[in-house]
């Protein structure tokens, strides 16, 4: 197979566009879409401090490289933030990949852990958990990312959500009927008081293309599967991958259509909603106590 643009050996068939890509054109295309997302949605402005959340996987380490290589020319300051949830046999390996990358790239790095902040690792929390692992991990990780980004003085928190992650989130929020969360999805989520604004520069790039990008660029990432991933998250993921295999471009069309109807969906949200301050931790909360503290209370970790 030959690249549709230069005739070199192809590494990838982009079926939704009907083209074959060689290593160089795959890399060029991913970097073009990354730059396009940043400029189209004005994700990063000159003079800002940007913190990138890095787990050590292909997506976040690729985003770290993409940002670090443009820090000077785009005129922003970059730092990195990693949350160690305490997932035995999984996270310690990926944290080492992050340590190596930030050292090589010379990026300021902050590592925070569930054990240090909450007194227990995720694995230990799950011994007494009533809810699924992704609930504890997602809610508590978001809390630590927000706190850590604030401590780093970030104007923006960049996360490496790819097209697959974003479409899975649309389905999950739809199935759960969670309009609040659904309407927060997008290339950037503007700040409410107490929250660092979030940006997702890889949101329109398929997971497979991000994996190829990381491999072809020789980025040393952690290749492993979270041992807790199961249930509805995994089922939605499998369904969407089957759909994409049989009907190429489905994921992107789902995302694009969601972006079109989101302004109308947002009109359904209660307009008098205002944030309070959590009486236990002082962070922003939808009620008297934030979701993180409610989960931690159930586990007997805050009083």
């Amino acid at each position: 197979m030959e690249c549709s643009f230069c005739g070199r050996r192809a590494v990838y068939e982009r079926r939704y566009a009907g083209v074959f890509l060689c290593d160089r054109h795959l890399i060029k295309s991913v970097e073009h879409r990354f730059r396009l997302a940043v400029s189209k949605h004005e994700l990063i402005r000159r003079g800002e401090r940007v913190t990138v959340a890095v787990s050590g996987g292909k997506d976040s380490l690729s985003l770290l490289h993409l940002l670090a290589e443009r820090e000077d020319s785009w005129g922003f300051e970059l730092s990195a933030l990693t949350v160690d949830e305490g997932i035995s046999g999984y996270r310690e390996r990926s944290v080492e990949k992050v340590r190596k990358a930030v050292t090589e790239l010379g990026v300021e790095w902050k590592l925070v852990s569930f054990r240090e902040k909450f007194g227990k690792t995720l694995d230990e929390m799950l011994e007494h958990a009533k809810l699924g692992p992704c609930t504890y991990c997602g809610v508590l990780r978001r809390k630590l990312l927000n706190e850590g980004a604030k401590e780093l003085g970030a104007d923006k928190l960049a996360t490496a959500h790819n097209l697959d992650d974003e479409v899975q989130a649309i389905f999950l929020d739809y199935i759960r009927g969670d309009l609040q969360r659904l309407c927060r999805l997008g290339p950037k989520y503007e700040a409410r008081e107490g929250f660092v604004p979030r940006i997702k520069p890889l949101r329109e790039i398929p997971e497979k293309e991000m994996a190829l990008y990381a491999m072809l660029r020789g980025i040393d990432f952690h290749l492993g599967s979270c041992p807790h991933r199961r249930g509805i998250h995994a089922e939605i993921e499998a369904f969407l991958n089957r759909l994409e295999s049989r009907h190429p471009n489905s994921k992107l069309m789902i995302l694009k259509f969601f972006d079109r109807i989101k302004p109308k969906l947002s009109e359904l949200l209660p307009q008098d909603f205002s944030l309070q301050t959590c009486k236990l931790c002082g962070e922003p909360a939808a009620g008297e106590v934030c979701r993180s503290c409610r989960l931690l209370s159930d586990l007997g970790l805050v009083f």
Partner: protein
Amino acid sequence: MKVKVRVWGRDETELDLPEKPTVEELLERLGIERETVVVKINDKISPESERLSDGDKVLIIPIVTGG
């Protein structure tokens, strides 16, 4: 024809396949969705429409990791 197939993290196995199958046909036989893996043939990343030859070494790398 015979090819050696290894899914990343597992042992290599030798498979007897019909003449010149594509990578996609191999993945279907193994019950693996093409969207979830990157495939190397003789150490080179290859599209799923690539045809396999006798004696090829195939490495299947799962890319869906979660978290």
